[in-house]
């Protein structure tokens, strides 16, 4: 069938088929989101630490320095998790043990005792 004008053609556009599971999927996603948010909120120490790091970075560093520091921090933490010695991780990440202690607001002797 041909159409005699554009408007008529546009009106013949096929209506999308709504998947039956859609509502259930959305409701489940919202429930999961609530659960995750509640779990994260419960880990107060982790959140507080992250907020502190961000404030420190904001106060003392330019954007480029902050990005570099954050990247270094990630490398440092991953290195520790993988069991790489603290001094090697420190070299790789560009962060000293003192830097890490300052960012984490803990005594640098503690850091040294724990990881070095």
């Amino acid at each position, binding site marked *: 069938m041909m159409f*005699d004008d554009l408007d008529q053609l546009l009106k013949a556009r096929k209506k999308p088929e*709504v998947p039956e599971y*859609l*509502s259930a999927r959305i409701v489940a996603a919202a429930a999961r989101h609530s659960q995750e948010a509640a779990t994260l909120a419960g880990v107060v120490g982790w959140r507080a630490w992250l907020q502190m790091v961000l404030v420190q970075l904001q106060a003392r560093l330019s954007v480029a320095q902050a990005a570099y520091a954050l990247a270094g921090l990630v490398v440092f933490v991953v290195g520790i998790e993988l069991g790489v010695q603290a001094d090697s991780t420190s070299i790789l990440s560009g962060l000293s043990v003192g830097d890490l202690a300052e960012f984490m607001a803990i005594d640098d002797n503690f850091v040294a005792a724990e990881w070095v």
Partner: protein
Amino acid sequence: MAKNADQMDDSDESLVVRVCEGDHQAFAQLVERHSGLFYSAAYRMCGNAEEAEEIVQDAFLKLWEKPQSYDVGKGAKFTTWFYRVVTNLAIDRARRKRPQAGPDVLDFMADKAPLADEILVQNGREAALEAAIQSLPERQKAALNLCFYEGFSNKEAAEILGIGVKALESLLMRAKTALKDNPLIAGLLEKPVEKKTG
């Protein structure tokens, strides 16, 4: 099928108020009531089922996370406000896929279907029409969808897109012109469209 009396009394706006209080049941009711409608809107924007599901899910998650974003006191209907959320999400998603460009360039760009005849022959008129519409720039597509398929007046559609009525009418005119120039559409129309020269 008649709904439960309590549900019938719960307007969208009153359900959102309950969502603000963390009422998951009210949220589920809104999803059940409107997910199909907004899925269709999202699908018409992106032309892909999976993406449409993600867009509408993201939109509802935004509602769940920040229901106070919808200001009941302002008097706008919930569905009108939510159409804006869905439309903006769809446009943002499409723009993330495209190379960075200013709004003028994005609105001017219109992909011409290189294999129009092939699409027509292989997939039929429905696929050809869909391909032609999906090739429109995002805001033209949004204007067309809101006015032609979602049943909004020009004023309502303009409000959803956050533009003036004249700007919306301009988008509609450009969308129709782009469609008429599309080889896919020319093949579907009874009379060949005369292209203006000069």
